[in-house]
């Protein structure tokens, strides 16, 4: 049922006609996020310019029980920003100012539409940076990072968005504006900020974020090492950890992923190796050099066939370019693919990869593996051809892999979120009671269920429907974003 004209007029009276998109053709630009298989054209798209206008929009929604979906850059991979039928999308890209960089307190205050990379750009002059680095960081926004509790390659050592957000200005689903969090680590009672972080837009809309900034490390050392097997690479990771070293990042790619990435970037990866490991250390000169020597020794001990050490910032960037291009590059070796985001305890990496290989053979579909080896976050890429009718088999294999991760004591998602994509798998990871209590918490924030409904928690309506297959996001095709 279309929105009443009266509601539409209230939005126009608040924002002006130019900031209310009701033309279905223009609204189509908002029909999906990075989970491009699911699409819903929103009834209206609202583009507020201030926090007060965001609150005004939400108050109108609340008054008329109109569901709303907040949207940043739309790079999310789980459908968190998928519009809701008969609802509105509130786009936050116009709230894109860096409000303050405060080097003395080592923090920055940002509007939600500021991109992740802009934070570090604004802080760099003070020798500071913002640690979480999702690979879409060129375009993804801090508001979206808050919603998804984004990670990145370096979260092994530095943690996730939740560990770096001090406080937020938030518009709750009834339109009230509150502050969650404080100016320090001291809290005022239960940590509602921590609940909001990673809530995938279901608990309200963030209109300003205060983040911690870290001092840029004195040195960074990066190496690329080839191994005769993924298992040998995995053993290296275990030994590094057992040696008491916390690397800034440890990434692994298998032969198929390397083939795709090297073909796309020519970054210098070996085409004939079954596995490659990227290890990065950072810190003070003394510690970094000592630990780097130890890492090299561990690599040798496990039959490393080639060891390449980045000798310059350009070489380091090159190694990372190859690694970060892996997702999109898979498009070169397969017409279609689905990306997964499961997590297993690190010690079960070899086992889970073996099982994935078995499942892959049984399904008759190839799976390329790219993963954050340090924290057990896998990104298996299920390769298939829709034209050859393999879609259903690929989706089944993909879901099987996610659920295998849960079975091994892990999680459905390490960083991409649940959204609509994995909501129906939530019962494999959580019991009925767990999910019911999460729903009660949600009702505390959003009693009318108008804030991004149908996401994160399974609903009969959602789970009766079948999501579409993965297709590359337009931004990804344009080379503007990459996936990690």
């Amino acid at each position: 049922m279309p929105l009443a004209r009266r509601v539409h007029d209230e939005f126009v009276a608040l924002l002006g006609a130019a900031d209310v998109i009701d033309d279905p053709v223009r609204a189509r630009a908002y029909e999906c996020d990075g989970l491009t298989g699911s699409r819903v054209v929103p009834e209206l798209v609202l583009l507020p310019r201030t926090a007060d206008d965001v609150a005004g929009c939400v108050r109108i929604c609340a008054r008329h029980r109109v569901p709303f979906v907040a949207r940043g850059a739309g790079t999310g991979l789980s459908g968190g920003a998928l519009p809701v039928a008969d609802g509105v999308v509130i786009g936050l890209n116009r709230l894109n100012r860096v409000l303050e960089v405060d080097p003395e307190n080592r923090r920055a205050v940002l509007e939600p539409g500021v991109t992740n990379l802009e934070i570090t750009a604004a802080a760099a002059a003070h020798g500071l940076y913002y640690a979480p680095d999702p690979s879409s960081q060129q375009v993804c926004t801090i508001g979206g990072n808050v919603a998804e509790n984004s990670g990145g390659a370096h979260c092994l050592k530095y943690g996730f968005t939740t560990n770096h957000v001090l406080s937020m200005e938030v518009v709750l689903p009834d339109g009230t504006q509150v502050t969650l969090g404080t100016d320090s680590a001291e809290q005022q009672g239960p940590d509602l900020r921590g609940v909001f972080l990673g809530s995938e837009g279901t608990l309200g809309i963030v209109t300003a974020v205060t983040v911690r900034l870290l001092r840029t490390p004195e040195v960074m050392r990066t190496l690329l090492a080839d191994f005769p097997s993924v298992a040998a690479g995995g053993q290296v990771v275990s030994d590094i950890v057992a040696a008491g070293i916390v690397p800034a990042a440890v990434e692994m790619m298998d032969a198929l992923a390397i083939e795709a990435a090297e073909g796309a970037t020519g970054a210098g990866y070996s085409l004939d190796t079954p596995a490659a490991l990227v290890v990065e250390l950072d810190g003070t000169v003394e510690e970094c050099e000592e630990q780097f020597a130890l890492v090299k020794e561990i690599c040798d001990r496990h039959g490393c066939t080639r060891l390449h050490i980045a000798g310059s910032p350009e070489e380091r960037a090159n190694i990372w370019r190859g690694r970060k291009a892996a997702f999109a590059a898979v498009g070169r070796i397969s017409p279609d693919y689905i990306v997964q985001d499961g997590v297993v305890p690190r010690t079960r990496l070899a086992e889970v990869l073996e099982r994935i290989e078995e499942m892959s053979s049984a399904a008759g579909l190839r799976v390329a593996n790219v993963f954050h080896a340090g924290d057990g976050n896998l990104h298996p890429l299920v390769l298939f051809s829709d034209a050859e009718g393999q879609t259903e088999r690929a989706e089944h294999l993909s879901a099987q892999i996610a659920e295998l991760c849960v079975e091994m004591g892990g999680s459905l998602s390490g960083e991409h979120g649940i959204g609509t994509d994995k909501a129906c798998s939530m019962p494999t990871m959580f019991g009925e009671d767990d999910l019911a209590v999460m729903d009660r918490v949600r009702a505390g924030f959003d009693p009318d269920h108008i804030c991004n409904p149908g996401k994160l928690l399974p609903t009969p309506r959602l789970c009766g429907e079948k999501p579409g297959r993965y297709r590359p996001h337009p931004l990804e095709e344009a080379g503007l974003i990459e996936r990690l």
Partner: protein
Amino acid sequence: MTRAAPTTLRPTSAKEVRDAVLDTPGRLAISGAGTARHWAGRPAEADATIDLSALSGVITHNPGDMTVSVHAGTPVRELQEQLAEHGQRLALDAARTDRGATVGGLLATADAGPSALVYGGMRDLVIGTTTVLADGTMVRSGGHVIKNVAGYDMAKLMHGSYGTFGPVVEVVLRLHPVPKAVACVAVDGPLDAAAAHVQRLMASPLEPIAAEWVSGEPGTLLVRLEGGTDTLPARTGRLLELLGDGAREIGPEGWARHAALTGGPSSRPEQARAAVAAAGPAGTSATALAGAGIADPTAVPGPDPAAPAGAAGDPGAVVRIGCAPVRLAPLLAGLPSTAVTAGPATGVATVTVPGSAVAEVHRAVAAAGGTSVLRDRPDTLDAPAWGPAPSALALLKAVKTQLDPEARFAAGRFEPWM
């Protein structure tokens, strides 16, 4: 389950906790080691107390994954001893762990020590929780993997909850390696000078694990570094150079006075020594004090409710304060403190003030945009526990109503807010 007293239940399993919640009508208080019994709002009289101290021990430790799941009543001190055998630790140095504080208690009170500068507090170390709600529902969130965004992060809701949503019965923690070497450097001076040192330190690449000022005549800045056995001396040298005249290396026991001022009534010396050995610098023992090598090591105004500090006739009270780091020193300068520990880089301080000044402290902290909560104080002191209510109070009440509609748990802890 044994009944320690007519109104105290002492469950030994998560299931027994649930049974206790279901079988006991009325208001329930939750206790662990009792080290924060006097913190925050004074608990209203309860119909029964659920004592979780028998719900103790490691459930699963996965050394290779650096995670451990424990029963909530496990004393952190004991956990650290077990983890140390594997070269691992919970990277939390809250002072009251020396007195037997439990994992659940530290989570519920959002307590943290000096190393929160780098490792954060319990909120940053807990990766999963199981909680029993008022209706007997056992709710689990998170899991055994560090990286996990599936579902709401309910563990955060428990952090700082003082049990208001129900007893946490199991906690999964991420672990860190025990550093190969630890160095501590001290330099005497007033807080202003310490804050200036810390500003330069944080702009340097030296990566301090903790930087805290302890009051005295004139007071002492303590800085902790962690690193490799062969490499740390060089970095310590750089730190001494950066801090300049008067900076000197001291033993880890130099932190003893800091712990004594922030952790509440002091403990038995042998316990403190065990904790220092297992977890690094957080001892409170008298022997450690003697070797502290910091200014005025004997003058420790104890925040023990039985032996209050402060002006004669006015019982002293301990208030925990947080604000933007650069606002901390000017804020503290205006408070009638008799003892202070302050983190110029974290903005967190613990102050001992006359009981009659607590309300004034709350006002001054709020005016600086900060937050404050009353910790240890004499039983007789009638002072507000919290500063002004947060803007999200209505939201907090709504979540409370969802999870504990009959307000059975932790009544009084958030007085005067709710």
